[in-house]
C-alpha cells in the first residue's frame, strides 16, 4: 500500500491505496466517483478519460500511485448546485447522449480540447475526439453540441430548434 493525496474536482483526498490499482479503479471504488466509466480497460475506448494536471488521459492505464500530489478533474465536477455545465447542457439539447456510457469521457476530452482550441473547426473536433468511442450517436450529435457551445452553429442547424 502507498499513501497518496490527490485533489479531485477541487476536493482533497488522502488515501492508502494498493500499488497496482489503476487511477480509474481508485476513483470509482475508493472515492466512489463512479461517473468515470471503464469500457475496454486498455486505452482504446476513452470512456475512462479524466483530466490529470491539465491533460486528458486514459485513467485505466495510469496507477493511482503515480498521481500522488496531482489535480484531477472528472465528470462529477461539471454540474454545480444541481445545474448542468454548458457542455452538459449542449449534449442534452442536441441529443448527444443515448446510453450515456461514453459521455463522461467524451465531455472530459472535449473540455480539454476547448482549453487548447477554444473554437475548433468540425475537423478539429473530429480529430479531438478520435480517442473516444461512441456506439450510439454516430458522433454527429456530439459534434453539433460542440459547435453549438462554441457559437458556431447556425439557427436552423442541429437539434436545438426542434425543442
Amino acid at each position: 500500500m502507498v499513501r497518496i493525496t490527490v485533489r479531485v474536482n477541487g476536493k482533497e483526498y488522502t488515501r492508502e491505496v494498493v500499488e497496482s490499482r489503476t487511477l480509474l479503479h481508485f476513483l470509482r471504488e475508493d472515492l466512489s466517483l463512479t461517473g468515470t466509466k471503464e469500457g475496454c480497460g486498455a486505452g482504446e475506448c476513452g470512456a475512462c478519460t479524466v483530466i490529470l494536471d491539465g491533460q486528458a488521459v486514459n485513467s485505466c492505464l495510469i496507477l493511482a500511485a503515480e498521481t500522488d500530489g496531482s489535480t484531477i478533474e472528472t465528470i462529477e465536477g461539471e454540474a454545480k448546485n444541481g445545474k448542468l455545465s454548458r457542455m452538459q447542457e449542449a449534449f442534452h439539447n442536441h441529443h448527444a447522449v443515448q446510453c450515456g456510457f461514453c459521455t463522461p469521457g467524451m465531455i472530459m476530452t472535449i473540455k480539454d480540447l476547448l482549453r487548447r482550441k477554444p473554437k475548433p473547426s468540425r475537423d478539429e473536433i473530429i480529430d479531438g475526439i478520435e480517442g473516444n468511442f461512441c456506439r450510439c450517436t454516430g458522433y454527429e450529435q456530439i459534434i453539433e453540441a460542440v459547435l453549438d457551445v462554441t457559437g458556431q452553429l447556425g439557427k436552423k442547424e442541429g437539434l436545438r430548434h426542434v425543442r
Partner: protein
Amino acid sequence: MIHDFRYVRPERLDEVLDLLSDRGEKGCVFSGGTDLFVDIRAGMTTPDYVVDLKGIESLHHLSFDKKEGLSIGACVTVNELIQHEAVKKHYSILAIAGRELASHQIRNRATVVGNVVTASPCGDMASPLLCLDAEAVILSNKGSRNILLSDFVTGVKSTTLRPDELVEKIIVPSRMIDATGGYKKLKRIRGHDLGVVSVALLKRKDTLRFAISSAAPTPVLLPDFPPSASVEEVQAAAQQAISPIDDVRCSREYRAFMVNVFIERLMKGAE
C-alpha cells in the same frame, strides 16, 4: 489490476540502474505505461515491481542544437515531441508520424523512447527514426553505449537491450535537418487501432529513403534511392524486402498491396 506488483519511483538514475542490475526479482521500467499496463492486464507480463522513471528530471529532457541534433529523453511524450518547435521545423517527418500514434489521450502519456523499446512491428516512431539515422544511448552500471536504431531492433518485441540496461535517450543527428518527408498509415479505426501497415519517406537533396512498418518482424529500411528513382523501382525493392503475414487485422496480400499504394502516394505527394 489482475496481477499485483509493487511501485517504485526513484529520483536518481543510479538507483534505477542498481534496480535493473539486481536480478533477484522481476522489475519493469515504465514512463507512460500505455504498453506495460495493457500487457499486465492481459497477463502477458507479471513483474514483481514496476519502476516509474518520471521522477528522474534528466529523462524529461527534449532539446535541439544545431551541432548535437535532437535529443529525446526516455520520458518525453509523443505529444511533447510533435508540439516542439524544432521538431516541427527541422524534423517534420517525426511530427507527421507522431500525429498518427493512437489518440490524444495516449499521446499525452506514451513516450517516443517507449514506443521504440517496445519494438512492436507496428510502432509508429521506429520507421521515421530509422530513416533519420537515429541512435539510442543506453546506460547500465557498467557504462554506456550508443547503437543505431536499425541495429537495435532485432525482431518482434525484441531488441539488443540487456536486462540491466536502460535507454536514456534517442539522438537524431543534425545533418538530417534539411530533410522533409511523409508518413502513411493504414488502420481500421482512427485513434483506436494499431497500424495495419505504414510507410515513411524521408526526402533529402540527394536521396529518397523509405522505411516500412508492420510488414516484417522489424521495421524495414530500404536502401537509399536517388531522387530520380521511379515509383516502380521503389515498389519492386520494397516487395523484395518485406515479409508480411496474415493476421486478425488484415491479409498478407492486402499489406503488400498497400505498401505499393503508399509508396506511390508519398512519391507523388498525394493525400
